C-alpha cells in the first residue's frame, strides 16, 4: 500500500496485467512515442504520460504506436480481441469517438449478439474525458451516456486512483468490450493504492458516505464534489449518502434504490450534457421503481445544454460544483 496518483495507478494496472498475461497489448497514438524519430524511444506515453515506461519493459511488439487513424486502430483492437489478444486501445480523448464509433458500437458491441453468442471480444478502450482543462468544446466532453446507451458495451468511470487501478484490471480481465473513462482533471490526484493487483467488480456501486436524509449519486470527478458537499452538509447536521456507481453499464440500481428507500430524497450529479444523460437515467429508474419512497422531486445537477466553452471564466461556470450540489440538496430537503 502506498500513495499513488491516478496516473500511476493506471500505469501500474497496465504493467501488472501485461506481466500476467502475454495477450495483453497496448496501442494508440504515441502511447510509446518517438517511432520513426531521431530521439528518445520512450518519448511520450500519451499526451499525459499515462503509459510512459511501458515500452521499456514490454517492447514495441506489445506497446504499439499507431498513425492517426482511429477507425483503423480501434477496429484493429476489436478484431484482435475477437481473435485471441486482449488489447487495451487508447482513444486519446473521448471527443474523437466520432471518427471511429462504428468499430465500437456496431462491431465490438454487437459481435456476440449478432453471432449468436459465438464471439468473445475482450477489448478495453481507455479514453480521457471531462472539462476543466481549458481544452474547449472538442476536447472536454464526457459522452459516457452515449456509450452507456449501447447494449453490448460496458462502461467504467473511476472516481479516484484506487478505483482506477481496480476497475482497469477488472476491465482487462473482463471478456466483454469495456470503455474505460479517465477524467483528465484526476490524473494528479493521489490516494492509497495497493501495490499488488486487485479487481473491483463491475456493477457494484461504492457507497462513499452513509447518511439518512438524502442520497446523492455522482459519477467520475463529480464523486469528489459530492463527497465535499456531503461533508459540508454533515456540519449542518444533514446526513447524506453518496453513491459512486463506478460503472454505468452494468449499473447498480439496487444500491441506489435501497438508499432512496431510506432517505426518500435524491440528487444526481452528472458532468455530461443534461439530455438523455446518466442524470436522467438514474432519476428515471428511481421514479419508476421507488416512487412510493420518494418524498421530494429528484434534482439533477448537470451543466447547461451547451458545448464546453474555452474561457476559464465560462468553463468554471459550466462545470457542476460543490456549491451547486449543496443548493440542490437543500432544495429537495426544503
Amino acid at each position: 500500500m502506498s500513495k499513488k496518483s491516478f496516473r500511476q495507478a493506471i500505469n501500474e494496472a497496465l504493467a501488472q496485467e501485461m506481466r500476467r498475461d502475454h495477450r495483453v497489448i497496448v496501442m494508440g497514438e504515441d502511447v510509446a512515442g518517438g517511432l520513426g524519430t531521431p530521439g528518445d524511444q520512450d518519448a511520450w506515453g500519451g499526451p499525459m504520460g499515462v503509459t510512459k515506461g511501458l515500452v521499456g519493459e514490454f517492447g514495441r511488439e506489445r506497446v504499439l504506436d499507431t498513425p492517426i487513424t482511429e477507425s483503423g486502430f480501434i477496429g484493429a483492437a476489436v478484431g484482435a480481441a475477437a481473435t485471441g489478444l486482449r488489447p487495451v486501445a487508447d482513444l486519446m480523448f473521448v471527443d474523437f469517438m466520432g471518427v471511429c464509433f462504428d468499430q465500437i458500437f456496431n462491431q465490438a458491441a454487437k459481435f456476440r449478439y449478432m453471432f449468436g453468442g459465438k464471439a468473445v471480444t475482450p477489448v478495453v478502450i481507455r479514453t480521457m474525458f471531462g472539462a476543466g482543462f481549458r481544452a474547449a468544446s472538442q476536447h472536454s466532453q464526457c459522452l459516457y451516456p452515449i456509450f452507456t446507451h449501447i447494449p453490448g458495451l460496458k462502461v467504467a468511470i473511476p472516481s479516484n486512483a484506487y478505483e482506477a487501478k481496480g476497475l482497469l484490471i477488472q476491465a482487462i480481465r473482463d471478456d466483454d468490450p469495456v470503455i474505460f473513462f479517465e477524467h483528465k482533471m484526476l490524473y494528479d490526484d493521489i490516494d492509497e493504492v495497493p501495490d499488488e493487483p486487485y479487481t473491483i467488480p463491475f456493477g457494484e456501486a461504492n457507497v462513499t458516505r452513509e447518511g439518512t436524509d438524502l442520497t446523492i449519486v455522482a459519477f467520475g470527478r463529480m464523486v469528489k464534489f459530492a463527497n465535499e458537499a456531503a461533508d459540508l452538509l454533515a456540519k449542518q447536521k444533514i446526513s447524506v449518502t453518496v453513491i459512486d456507481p463506478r460503472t454505468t453499464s452494468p449499473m447498480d440500481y439496487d444500491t441506489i434504490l435501497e438508499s432512496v428507500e431510506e432517505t426518500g430524497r435524491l440528487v444526481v450529479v452528472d458532468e455530461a450534457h443534461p439530455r438523455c444523460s446518466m442524470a436522467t437515467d438514474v432519476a428515471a429508474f428511481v421514479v419508476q421503481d421507488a416512487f412510493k419512497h420518494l418524498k421530494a422531486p429528484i434534482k439533477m445537477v448537470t451543466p447547461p445544454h451547451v458545448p464546453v466553452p474555452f474561457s476559464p471564466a465560462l468553463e468554471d461556470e459550466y462545470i457542476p460544483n460543490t456549491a451547486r450540489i449543496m443548493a440542490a440538496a437543500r432544495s429537495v430537503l426544503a
Partner: protein
Amino acid sequence: MQLNREQLLAAYRMMRTIRDFEDRVHTEFSAGGIPGFVHLYAGEEASAVGICMNLDERDKIASTHRGHGHCIAKGCDVDGMMGEIFGKSNGLCGGKGGSMHIADLSKGMMGANGIVGGGPPLICGAALTAKTLKTGGVAVAFMGDGASNQGTTMESFNLAKAWNLPVIFVVEDNGYAESTGSNWSVSGTQLGRAAGFGIPAVQVDGLDFFAIYDAAHEAVERARNGGGPSLIHGKLNRYYGHFEGDAMTYRGEGEVEMLRRDHDPLNFFRKRVTEAGLLEAAQLDEIDATVQAEIDASVVKAKGAAMPVASKLLTDVYVSY
C-alpha cells in the same frame, strides 16, 4: 500454380455450392420465405473460392453485406447458413444475425458486415493477433468497389503497411455500388491507390478462378513470410440486383444476360479443366447433382426448423453482466 485433381474438384464444388445457394435464396426470397435485406454473390464465385483455397484454419477473413460466398468458401456450414437466412433456430447465429451477419469464428470467418468498410480495420486486428502470437496465419479483407472509397478502408491500407501486417485486401469490383458505377465513384485506380501506400497490388479477371488463385497464392506467401500486405483488384460481375428486390434499371440492356452467357466463372472453369483433360465433364455433372440435393436439403431443414424461442431475445449480449 498447378492444382491437383482433388483441389480442382473441391474448387468446382465450392463454386457450384455458392451458385446454387444464391440461386435458391433468390427463389425463396421471391416466394416470400426470407425476411430482410439479402445481397447475392452469384457471378462472383471465383473470387471467394480462388482466394480461400489458399487459406487454412489459422487464417481469418472479414466479409461484407454480400457475404454468402465468402462464408461457404471459408467452410461455414451450409445448413446453418440457410437456417440463419430464414431466421430460424438452427441458424449459425441462432437467427439473431441473418444474411448480413453470418459468422463462424471457429472457421476463421469473422462475419459478414452490414457496414460498408467495416471489415478492413477488423482484419488488421486479426492479422495483428497472428503476428503477435506468431500463429503463421494471414488475414483477408474482402470489400466491394464501393467499400474501397470508405475512409476506414484506406486507413487500414496505411495501418497494415505501417505495422507490416499479414493482410490481403481483396477489392471485389463488380462495377457497381448499389446503382452507382465504380468508374465514377472510384477516382484514380485501385492499383494506383495501393501503390500510393507502398502496397504491392495486382488486377485480375474475376471470371478466371486460376488467375485469382495465383494472385492470392502470391499474396498469401508474401504475408506468411513477413512481407506485409498486398491488394488484389478483381473485376467481377454480379448477376442479381444490389439486394433482392432491386429492379436494376441502371444496368445496360441485356447486360446481365450477356454476362451470364459469356462471363460465367463456372462455365469458364468447366471449359478450362475439361479441355485441358484435367477433369471429366461427368465428374462435374455429378458435383452439380450432389450440390443441388444438398441445397434442397438445407432449404427443407431451414423451413422445418423452429423459430428461436422468445427468451433468446435476452441472451448473448454479454459474456457476463
